[in-house]
């Protein structure tokens, strides 16, 4: 069953198109990630769902209730949709407890115990309740913002790049905690981000957005392996893209003969492999390392093939074992290649 249905949403700011015919179904209880470069319209879409923006046309339905259509719009404060913005947006004139309790209708003892419960659920120490927002670290601020949004038991949770202001180690820990918390509570969640690694790890359902349009939606692993086009392929990670001749499910290219995922196609096309599908090996396609980028645990090598030196191929290799530039190497592939159309 789907919790949220977006249907043909359009929005322009002056002559600039922000959203063009956006339709999307978000399943109940799932984690949907909308990923796209900055300026792709993803934040506009999120704010529209929250009720801070209104579409020029199209409709928006949550659990069967129409939030926006051509004739009427439910204002933000009646939507019961939680929202956590990038910087947390804590009210600077209220303590942590007052911030968290802002959306609660309860009074007295029940109020305090509910706040304590919420703080506990986001792993905030109880003695933080009387602190002020400016006394908190970035991660703590985000936890408070999350608890505040959880307080009203939202029907839907919107996260607008909530981890991007945190440093790398904290970011993945926070991401895991938030994912587990929201799954346990069974809250349907939409996260917006420009960070593909974050998108791939957080999502049950991934949606790529570009220039106001949804380009492709699906399971993250599937999207990574079988992107709809080259641009999406490159946006979701490094890729090796080669021209090839396709015949009966096999592709002939500079890396040799590789099985493809589309047995029926024929003719010339471009195929895509992820760098981790290409390995250095004892035998295989000969080439020479032209560049070595050391990155700690892995090294990214640029290899020029003997068959066509104008084509270079990215190969991952264990950091300490990687051959230096100038070394002669052989490449082999594993798995199937993805045929890119268009």
């Amino acid at each position, binding site marked *: 069953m789907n919790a949220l249905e977006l249907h043909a949403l359009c929005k322009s*700011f*002056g002559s600039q198109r922000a959203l063009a015919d956006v339709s999307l179904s978000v399943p109940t209880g799932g984690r949907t990630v909308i990923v796209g470069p900055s300026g792709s319209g993803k934040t506009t879409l999120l*704010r529209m769902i*929250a*009720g*801070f*923006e*209104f579409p020029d046309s199209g409709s928006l339905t949550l659990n069967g209730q129409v939030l926006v259509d051509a004739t009427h719009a439910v*204002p*933000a*404060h*009646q*939507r*019961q*949709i*939680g*929202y956590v*913005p990038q*910087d947390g*947006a804590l*009210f*600077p*004139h209220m303590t942590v407890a007052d911030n968290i309790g*802002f*959306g609660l*209708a309860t009074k007295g003892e029940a109020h305090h115990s509910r706040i304590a419960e919420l703080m506990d659920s986001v792993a905030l120490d109880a003695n933080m309740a009387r602190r002020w927002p400016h006394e908190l670290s970035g991660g703590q601020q985000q936890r408070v913002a999350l608890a*505040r*949004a959880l*307080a*009203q038991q939202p029907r839907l949770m919107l996260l607008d790049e909530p981890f991007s202001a945190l440093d790398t180690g904290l970011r993945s820990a926070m991401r895991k905690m938030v994912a587990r918390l929201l799954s346990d509570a069974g809250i349907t969640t939409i996260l917006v981000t420009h960070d593909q690694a974050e998108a791939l790890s957080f999502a049950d359902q991934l949606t790529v957005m570009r220039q106001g349009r949804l380009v492709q939606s699906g399971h993250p692993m599937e999207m990574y392996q079988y992107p709809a086009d080259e641009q999406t392929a490159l946006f979701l990670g490094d890729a090796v893209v080669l021209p090839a001749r396709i015949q009966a499910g096999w592709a002939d290219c500079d890396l040799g003969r590789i099985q493809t995922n589309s047995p029926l196609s024929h003719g010339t096309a471009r195929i895509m492999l992820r760098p981790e599908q290409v390995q250095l090996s004892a035998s295989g396609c000969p080439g020479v390392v032209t560049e070595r980028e050391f990155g700690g645990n892995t090294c990214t090598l640029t290899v020029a093939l003997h068959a066509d030196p104008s084509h270079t191929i990215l190969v991952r290799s264990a950091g300490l074992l990687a051959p230096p530039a100038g070394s002669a190497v052989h490449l082999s592939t594993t798995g199937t290649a993805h045929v890119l159309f268009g």
Partner: protein
Amino acid sequence: MLPEAAAQALTAPAQRRVQGLFKGRGGRWGTSLSVLVSLLALLPIAFVIGVSWQIGWAQIEALVWRPRVGELLVNTVLLVVITLPLCMLLGIALAWLTERTDLPGRRLWSLLAVAPLAVPAFVHSYAWVSLVPSIHGLPAGVLVSVIAYFPFMYLPVAATLRRLDPAIEDVAESLGLKPWAVFWRAVLPQLRLAICGGALLVGLHLLAEYGLYAMIRFDTFTTAIFDQFKSTFNGPAADMLAAVLALCCLAMLTAESAARGHARYARVGSGSAREQRIVRLSPRTTLLALGLQSLTCALALGVPLVTLGQWLIAGGREVWRFNELLPALEQTVLLGVAGAVLTTCAAVPIAWLSIRAPGRLQRILEGCNYITSSLPGIVVALALVTVTIHFARPIYQTTITVLLAYLLMFLPRALVSLRAGIAQAPVELENMARSLGRSPGRALWLITLRLAAPAAAAGAALVFLAIANELTATLLLAPNGTRTLATGFWAMTSEIDYAAAAPYALTMILLSLPLTGLLYHQSKRTAGR
């Protein structure tokens, strides 16, 4: 002065997001209210144009092209042309010494450079007339004006010096500039906005001030209009002088806006700026600097305080007529509080719109208020006298008219503070409150207005300070029997009872002192300390 900067500070997408909010009823209400306030603000301009139209060109020529007007014009222009550069020199020198050198006691000196603002301008000239009874004319006008108004130059320049990015000076020096050249080519250009703003403020005060010049018998347009009004009441002669004075003010506004230019003065880089560099003064320079500071302090604070003390001692106990002084204090406080509350409330819709939905209409509205507040109190007062006599007889010579005059004259003071306050409450917070189930009106009240409250209070305090020391419009507009501290003081000095005036002056200074402290504190805060 500020709306463009504020508009630019909001990025284009933020503006768009904000405009989405204004499809609602609240937006329309806000817009209509601000249009109303701004139309009110256009009243004095409409008066000047209307009166000129009514009088007709032939009579305007007869009234304006006469030796008396020429004499006033020469007086006024000389006063401005001599006083402004002196104020600039003194203000910049003191600001540099207190902000950028290791001058001993520089925090104290910086406080003492702002303190003269607590002394109303006409009390300054009262002190000088008491000290040197023969003092009069242009030299006296220049002397007292510089002493009374240089803090208006000092405040913005010191605040800007404090927040300049020291990296720019480092770079200039690394490019081979000598220290003096660094100041001249890298620091001074960045002070341009502050200097222009300060100069405008000083200039407008020079044009508008009545009490200061009347007491030392120096004729400017404002004193002449006042005398004319006293002798012929609401005659065309006074009206035409007022029109010429209004033109002078508009010319000054235009000159300031041209001098400001379009260059960018904000810091371009990211990250926070480092601490300012402090220049070590040689013992001789330190001595010279201390001399300058002490001299300024002696002239601007010593003279008024010593003279006041002398009068109070000479007057003894009987000058403290509490049965007159206390009602005057009460009336001043009442008028001040009422005016401050009214003005701040009127500023709310305009300030709110200028932050949340900046646009062309908004800039025009703010421009209206700004121009009117640059008009001298006497022009505003004449306009209100004429308009109330002809169109609103019931409120003629009532407290309502006085409050209206205060509103027109001091709205920008409330506006500037309030706008800064609302800008500190990002619209995102209001959105958050709405997403947590609060209606837009509640969200505005719980979040934005709560966050802007300190700034609104500061703005209201500045308006109160202005009203407490206001003389001209109050003299002209107040209902019979009204006696504020300023008009009480004026009545005493008009009867040459200088000793009896001293308690009024002292009360005014004591009332202004905490608010001047607030002004000082606020200028520090806008500089980010």
